[in-house]
Every structure is written in C-alpha cells, then in structure tokens.
C-alpha cells in the first residue's frame, strides 16, 4: 500500500513538472479497461468493446477490456495507481449496488474520479409470454384489478437494475391501484438472462427482466408458441421501436414525474487521477461522439452514442443517483415483500 502511494505521489509530481507534455499521456501506453461483468455477451462488454476500439483510435494507445466482474472491478478502481492507465467502464450498477446495500460505502462515487459518459443503453425491459392476457404493464395492473384471484410473478435479481424497475412499478401500483393489487404482484429470484428465460418457459415466472436485444429474437413471428415473448415494459424509449410500451408513457411515475431510465455507461477512474488525464479522455470521447462510424456501431446494437464530457457527466450521474436514492429509500425491500 505504501509503495503504491509512493508511486502515485511520484507520478503526480511528474505530471506537475511536465505541464507542456499535453495530450500525450496515453500515446503508445498499455491501458486496462475493467468492466463490472464477467459475461462477454452482455451490454457491459458490448459497449466497452465498441468504445475501446474508438478510444484506441483517438488516444493512440493499446487498450484491452478485462471482464472481471462487479466486485473485482470496484476493488481494482480502489487499488489501482491513479495514472489513468487502469479505468472502469460500467453502468448505473456502480452506485446502485451501494444504494441497495449490497456493496460497501467504500465503493461510493465519491471515492472515484468520474470521467466522461461514453454511451447509453435504453433497452432494459420486462417481457412476458406472448399468450399472456395483457400487452403492457398498465394492462397488467388492470388485469390484476379485474381478476382478484390471479397473481403475477416477476423474475428479478436483488440489488440490480431489475430490482429498481420492480420497486418503481410496485410503488406506482400501490399508489394507483391499492395495496391489495400490488401485493398480488410477486417476485421470483432470477439470475442470468438464460436462467430467467428457463424460469419463464418452465412456468416458474410470468414476466422476466432483461435487455431488449437479448429478447428480440423470441418476439419475432414464427417462433414456437412455447418460447415466444412480447415486451410489456421498457424503461426508456428506443428510437427505432416507437411501438413498444415504455414506463414513462404508460404513466408510471416517480414523485409524479414520468420515468425514463437508460443505463448510462461512464468511465470511472481511481481517486486522485490528475485532471489532465481526464481532459485527454474528454477530448477523445468528443472526437468519438463526432465519428459517424461510432454512432453507427452503437445504433446497430440499439445503444445510443450520446456522450457527455466529464464535468457534465459528473453532475448528471450525481443528480440521477439522488433521485434513485429517494426511490430506493421509500420503496420496500424485497426481503419484506416475501
């Protein structure tokens, strides 16, 4: 630990002494990008992979995405040298884990340097079997109200975005339709997307949470009735699919305001990273934003290439966290709903 401090001190001194060496910090360096997922087919990896290719181009460095998992990625950002050569690209789980209490305060946003936003994924959604008696989550609420003997089981993971989506819906359901209806919406503990799909096919869940693109093929025409799905609630609008039901459009609200939630992918750096490193990342991200190929790559995967410079990204993510903090604090814990 002491050695690391010493190294970082020396590095900071070097940076202070070389004010003229601007915009060349990353040139020909090896950069390690950790992500908070171990899967290489999820959105975390896909976004990081696209961004990585453009950062290589604009920073002129050799970088590599390491899918180490959430806990390991957070720990890496806490212990890595703050020279910008190791950073994390991850979505809202970065602070949601702390808000839900599944990660310690040590990993709070305040203990990291927040870099630019590199992209968004609006595709978090709930899907149900195609033959379900409701077409969206508003109809689902009506259906629950009209059928007092029926229940609905939603498959979610504790402490994740799906947990958030569940409690937002629960609170809204309770306010709009009363506690009795809300309590007939149960939850099932899910896992990875394929576990949830099997829960659905096995009739152990009625509605499952996942990513728009991973459910897409099951919504197509011609899929076996047993496997077929339909989208019943997206958390945000997808530009190319205006036909799908979205939380905010259905009247689901937080504090009376309709909610639209995209996963925001930001660069997070170790505490103490000098400003000129972040500035160089900002510059590269600005170039990336203007690159039509980058925009095309992101749109192809139904992600959005809306980047933000680090200063705005920081204000943005803090504000977003404050809103969601209130939601989570006022919402019931899944443990108490069982």
């Amino acid at each position: 630990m002491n050695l690391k401090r010493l190294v970082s001190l020396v590095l900071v001194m070097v940076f202070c002494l070389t004010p003229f060496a601007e915009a060349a910090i990353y040139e020909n360096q090896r950069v390690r990008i950790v992500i908070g997922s171990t899967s290489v087919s999820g959105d975390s990896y896909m976004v990081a992979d696209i961004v990585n290719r453009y950062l290589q181009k604009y920073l002129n460095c050799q970088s590599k995405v390491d899918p180490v998992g959430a806990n390991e990625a957070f720990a890496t950002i806490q212990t890595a040298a703050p020279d910008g050569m190791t950073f994390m690209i991850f979505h809202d789980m970065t602070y949601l884990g702390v808000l839900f209490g599944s990660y310690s305060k040590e990993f709070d946003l305040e203990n990291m340097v927040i870099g630019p936003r590199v992209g968004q994924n609006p595709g978090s959604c709930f899907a149900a079997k195609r033959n379900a008696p409701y077409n969206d989550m508003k109809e689902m609420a009506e259906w629950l109200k009209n059928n007092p003997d029926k229940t609905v089981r939603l498959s979610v993971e504790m402490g994740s975005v799906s947990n958030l989506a569940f409690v937002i819906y629960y609170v809204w359901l309770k306010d709009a339709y009363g506690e009795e209806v809300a309590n007939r919406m149960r939850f099932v503990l899910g896992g990875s997307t394929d576990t949830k799909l099997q829960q659905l096919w096995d009739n152990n869940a009625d509605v499952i949470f996942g990513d728009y693109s991973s459910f897409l093929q099951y919504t197509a025409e011609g899929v076996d009735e047993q496997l077929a799905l339909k989208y019943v609630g997206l958390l945000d609008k997808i530009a190319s699919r205006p036909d799908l039901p979205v939380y905010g459009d259905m009247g689901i609200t937080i504090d009376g305001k309709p909610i639209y939630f995209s996963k925001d992918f930001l660069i997070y750096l170790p505490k103490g990273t000098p400003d000129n490193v972040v500035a160089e990342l900002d510059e590269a991200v600005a170039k990336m934003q203007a690159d039509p190929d980058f925009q095309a790559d992101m749109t192809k995967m139904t992600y959005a290439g809306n980047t933000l410079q680090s200063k705005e990204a920081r204000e943005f993510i803090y504000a977003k966290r404050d809103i969601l903090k209130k939601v989570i604090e006022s919402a019931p814990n899944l443990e108490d709903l069982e």
Partner: protein
Amino acid sequence: MDFLTNFGLTDFIFNSGLALIGVAVGIIFGAIPGMSATMAVAVFLPMTYVFKEVTPALYLLLGLYVGGISGGLIPAILINVPGTPSSVCTGFDGYPMARRGESERALKIGVVASFFGGIISLLVLAFLTPPLARMAIKFSAIEKFLIILFAMTVIAALSKGSMTKGVFAGFLGVLFSLIGELSLNNKMRMVPDAVEIFNYKLNLAQDLRSGFQLLPLLIGLFAITQMFQEAEKGMLSNNLNEGVTVEGARKFSFKDFAGQFVNVVRSSLIGTFMGILPGVGGSAASLIAYSQAKSWSKDPDKLGTGAPEGLIASESSNNGLTGGALVPLLSLGIPGDATTAVLIGAFMLHKIEVGPLFIQKYGDTWNQILIALLICNVIMFLIMFFSLKYMSNVVKIKSSRLYPLIMLMCVVGAYATRSGIMFDVWCLLIFGLLGYVMNKLGLPTAPFLIGFILGKDLEKYFIEAVRNNNYNLMVFFERPIAIGIWVLIALFLGYSIWDNFKGGSLEKAGIKG
C-alpha cells in the same frame, strides 16, 4: 481463378487456415494447466472483429473450442494435472499408464477417443437439434439437481476401500464451493471480516466475495500439491515408475479400441447430452461417463489403475460436449456450457441472433458451423496424433527441471482466470497446502475437487426447485424423468457400496492371511 471463387474454394482454404490456427492455439491453452477453452475463446473474441463476416470468426473460435477441450488431456496424462476441468477423470487412468512408460499409448488412445466423441456429437448436432432442444427445456431445476447429484456418485466409485473418507472429502469440497456471496440474496457466508496482519489489512470479505475460483483451486490442488510432495521426496527422478523405460513400454494400436465400441458411444452420448442441458457444467459429463464406464465394465477393479477404458470414457465424453453444447445455443439461444456462453459474444458482434429462428434464418451460417466443427475435429486429430510422440517424452524430464516451469505456467493460468486478479494466484498456494495436508491425512483430493465443481449448482437448483414448488420436497419424486434419475442413482450407489464392502473385506482377509 473464377472457378475457384465461384465455388468458394479460396474462402474455404482461408477458413480452414483459421481453423488450423484456432485448433493449434486451443491445444496450447488446453494443455497449460489453469487455462481453458473458455479463456481461449474469450481472448480471441475481440480479435474476430476484423472479419467482416461471422463465418471466419466461427472457424477460428470453434477451432479454439475443440482444441482447448482436447488439449486438456495432455497434462492430465503426462503430469497428472488436468489441463481443463473437464479432463479431471482423464488423469485417473491416463497418469498411471504414463508412469508405466505408456505415455504415448495413453495420449493416442485419448486423442482417438476425443475424435470419436467430437464426431458423434457433431452427428447429433446436425440431425437432432430441434427435437433435442425441445426435450432440453423439459428439464427443470428438479431434474438438474438430481443430475448433479448423480454426477456426485462418481465419488463413491473413486474412493473404493475408504468410502467414508472419500464422501467426506466430497462434501468438504461442496462446503468450500459455497464460500462467498450467494448471488440470489447478495449475502456472504463463511467469510471472516477484515483482519490485520503485520500492518497489512487482509480483506478476505473483498477477495472472497465471488468465492474461490475453480481453475486456481484445481491447479493448486493438483500441480502445487504434487510439487510439495516431490520436493519432500527430493525431486530426484522423473515421473516414471522405477525401472520403467518409455522404449520398452507397450505401443498404441487401434486394437486398443477392440471391445470399446459401446463405451465410446455411451460416453460420447453422455457428453453430448450433458452439453445439451443448459446449466449443467461440462465437468459433470466426464464424471458421469467415467462412473458409468466403471459400473458397466467387465473389470471394474482395473479402472483407476491405468485401464484404457476409463481414459476412453473421459475423453470421448468431454469432446462429446462440444457438439452438444451448441444444440441449445443454436436452437433456443441458451448456451450449453461456459464456452458456448462466450461464443454468443461472437454472434452478437456480427449482429446474428442465435435463438429459435437461427437455423431457418441463417441456414448458411448453420451449415458453415457444421462444416467448421468437422474440419476442426479432423485438424485436432491430425495435429495431436502426429505430435504426441514428441510430447510423450515430457515424462522423461527430471522433476527438478519440470516443476519450476509448471509453477510458471500455473501462475500465468491462475492470474488469467479472471483477467488479472492477484488473489487467484494466492489460491494456488492455499490449495497446494490444503492438498498436501489432505494427502497426509489420507483424505483423497479428487472427490474434494468434484464436490467443489458441483457444489454451487447443487445449491442453486435445490433452492430453485424447492422455492418454486411451494417448499414441497415431494416434487423430487413426482416427475417421471426425476424418478428415472433416482433409479440410476440408487442402482449405482448400491453397486458401489456393495463393491466397497466386498473390497474392504478382501483387504482385511489379505492382511490377516
């Protein structure tokens, strides 16, 4: 030239070249303890972006998959360290053969068995994918729990003569696999809080949150434990039995496969079937195949002492996995094992949806996958079969020269397990020491490993089955498939216990006499 391009021959040659590279590199990854086929595919995944189409990427990645699974037999036979988790059973018979000087024979038997396994599973993939996929989703958490229980029965077969100790070691392994966080409720169990030793804050809660990783544990338990044991003996010789030379040993001939037809087919199909079931790991395949080989064998006592039968069972089943694991991936969109889970990434990068409509919609890619698998298996066979003669000489290397290099490889493998976590390297030492102490106490390490491999899934499916069925334990006895598996478990356990008792009394008689 027009003629060539029209028939896609240049493409075909180019793709086969990629398959060759894939298989060769895959074999290296498989052969290095601690590196697996999954890792090989994950490492090469981002590089496949340079191809504009998905087909060349698939040739490369499937080559890595086939090569990686097959390469695992090399260290299992030569140095008794399974190169991949699915080759755990290969060493049970392969290593004793190598010690008798028959390393080349053992390797060749393994490669031929692998080839058969790969081809049989390919046939299943090509002709039976849609019906098998429909069958696979009939297996719920209940059946999966029982299949994993069934795989655990191999422990009983392995620990003949000291069954209680073997079973104890197995459950200890299960207990170790549970250490860390249960992802279902994000809570930790069996992990001490942070402690301070010599001003150094040891934050186990941080390191152990995701539990011990399989690959570091595996190589710690086998390679590092062996290094300590050899060091204790003075590192004087090589791995051969005393007085044995490689030159004088029995040579490989295809006659070794005489009478093994049923074994090859049965084991390959077990492997393929385990691959088809999503969420039942690949290692379960070779475990079940091995225990089945033992219970159907005419000479069950020979298994574990260097019988080709066990080697064949293990190797044909783990290559049988390759085709099988692609069945649910390409027809349901659900990966059959860890490596195919990584393959999804390749399809996604090229914007191809693998799922219920894949075969209809991407018929061309589907055909290419079948051709690629066939070519990869042939290349794997050719590379391995004709280079094994040289590899088999590893057994002649002096221990004092071999173990420093094994140490080096283990460190690389452990560190790469989760792309760069130092704690995984420390696990080498932890489990190296644990294995050493267990051996001193007469506790076998193979059952411990098997328990560890299967433990987490055992818990996951138990919780899922019971919670989703109104907490009624009777669900385990109600569905027809479940009852079938219970019958298999009972038959096999009964046989093992009877065999153990018989063996035990013979042993005693021998001592008294």
